[in-house]
């Protein structure tokens, strides 16, 4: 897919994020906007998925480990055709399939319910292991093949959860080379800068120490996202961690790099400004 097209889609995904959070008057726009380009690339170019057959057995799996970025997941899924884009306005409302955090029982196409940080990455490891288990040789030994690939996006603040490192140790030790893990490194968490709260830095060295192939990219550059994902597919015997530098609130002028927009919904006036910002970006593309 042309980068220009991906950029347009990602911009529409961002409009969907802002629309959902505004309509729901609740939710997490900052970290949804920062992850939008990665999620767009995965859903629109990379993953073997079919919105009409969301449980297709050999599909690639996606786990939004930072489950509060549900608006990002919902918006990208809606734009990909899993459900009508108009449904985004039901986000977080009573009776909606778009629960506050992703719920696989409610919405077909969600591979794992998440929301409690640190758990999604373990689930992704379990899926990656299943993908390897299904492709063993006659002596039950793992082969270089896997039935499918698994992608997961973690927040950088999420790295403060100990379970992330239990999962990282497992993925490295079990050679889950069909697992590609993104860290959405926007540098901010609810309480402030991640290095001030309880610094997980240096991030690349930590994943390398746990047996990951590590790639550092600009998480808003589609050439870099694409190159990293393709590189990950060539790596054998180890999982890949892509540390993506991103901007929290990316695309909405007043939300960018503001920790305060981690979990706040825009009011009507702010919503209009945000949509105008994104409209302008769309025109420039």
């Amino acid at each position, binding site marked *: 897919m042309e980068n220009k097209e991906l950029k347009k889609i990602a911009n529409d995904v961002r409009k969907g994020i802002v629309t959902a959070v505004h309509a729901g008057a609740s939710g997490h726009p900052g970290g949804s906007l920062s992850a939008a380009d990665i999620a767009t690339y995965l859903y629109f170019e990379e993953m073997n998925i079919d919105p009409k057959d969301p449980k297709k057995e050999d599909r690639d799996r996606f786990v939004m480990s930072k489950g509060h970025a549900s608006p990002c997941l919902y918006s990208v899924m809606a734009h990909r055709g899993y459900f009508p884009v108009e449904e985004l306005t039901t986000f977080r409302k009573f009776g909606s399939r778009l629960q506050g955090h992703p719920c696989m029982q409610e919405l077909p196409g969600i591979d794992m319910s998440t929301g409690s940080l640190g758990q999604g990455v*373990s689930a992704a490891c379990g899926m990656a292991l299943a993908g390897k288990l299904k492709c063993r040789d006659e002596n039950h030994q793992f082969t270089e093949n896997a039935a499918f690939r698994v992608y997961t996006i973690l927040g950088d603040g999420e790295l403060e959860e100990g379970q992330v490192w239990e999962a990282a140790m497992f993925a490295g030790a079990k050679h889950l080379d069909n697992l590609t893990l993104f860290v959405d490194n926007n540098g901010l968490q609810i309480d402030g800068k991640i290095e001030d709260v309880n610094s997980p830095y240096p991030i690349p060295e930590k994943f390398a120490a746990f047996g990951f192939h590590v790639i550092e990219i600009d998480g808003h550059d589609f050439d870099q996202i694409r190159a990293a994902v393709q590189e990950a597919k060539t790596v054998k015997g180890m999982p890949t961690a892509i540390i993506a530098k991103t901007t929290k609130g990316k695309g909405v002028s007043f939300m960018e790099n503001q920790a305060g927009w981690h979990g706040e919904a825009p009011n009507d006036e702010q919503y209009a400004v945000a949509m105008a910002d994104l409209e302008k970006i769309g025109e420039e593309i």
Partner: protein
Amino acid sequence: MAELGKKIATRQSYGEVLQELSEKYDNLIVLDADLAGSTKSGMIKKVHPEMHIDCGIAEANMTVIAAGLSTCGMIPVISTFAMFGAGRSYEQVRNSIGYPHLNVKICCTHAGITVGQDGASHQCLEDLALMREIPGMVVMNPADDSEAKAAIRAAVAYEGPVYIRLGRAAVPVVFPEDMDFEIGKGVVLREGTDVTIAATGVCVDSALKAADKLAEEGISAEVINICTIKPLDTQLLLKSVGKTRKIVTVEEHFVTGGLGSAVAECLAENDPVKMLRIGVKDTFGQSGTADELMKFYGLDADSVAASVKAYLA
């Protein structure tokens, strides 16, 4: 082949039945957290080493690894001690297995005080309470070798999350090997008219022996085995209490949150009678042999008989 009265630990039954099930289910996968020898789940490696994954000492991760595996059509069986499987990983079980209602079997050994010498840090007396609170979770506490095997077979055949409580100590075989078993069904082991004794797990043996002692003193006790704590066989309990108007629960668990609480809730809503809950009161366990501890906490046959007599007096 287990003869009645012979002593076998239900963790041993677990290891044996996993070997059996590995021949029947090619999507079975057993996960351990560095306790494959203690939990006996490692026995599966003798017949199907490829069906065993050791996750190391990281129970929270193991719990959610199982969740991920189950979403891809595997039947994961988590093995660890109850303290860690139900306690340490409670929130993982709740949010990543319970909430998405995934087909994971949580088989926890070394439950209760019969862990023995390891002491209070390893003696989980609240696992039934914790697991009972998770919507949709089936909770079972088998009494002996035969029932443990039957419960695990039923759990693997069942689609959905199941918690099974198993023990470290050898306990007498109460049921024939070919027993009938159904999730959610209690069993009247001995009919009686003066008092109902509802027991679960290793306390079923104590309850049966206590009933023998009570009979010698002219007290006719009806003994009910409740393996499935949730969903509870309320029909059977209400029928028995309707007859005896007296009920005692016996469990190797805190008196709060487990069988005693489940029965109390059922009776309070349907047919209130003054009941007695036998179990560990508001205190932690301690080191000692299983027999010493069962006696100290009032769970052996003599203590149960004495408590029932006092309650009836």
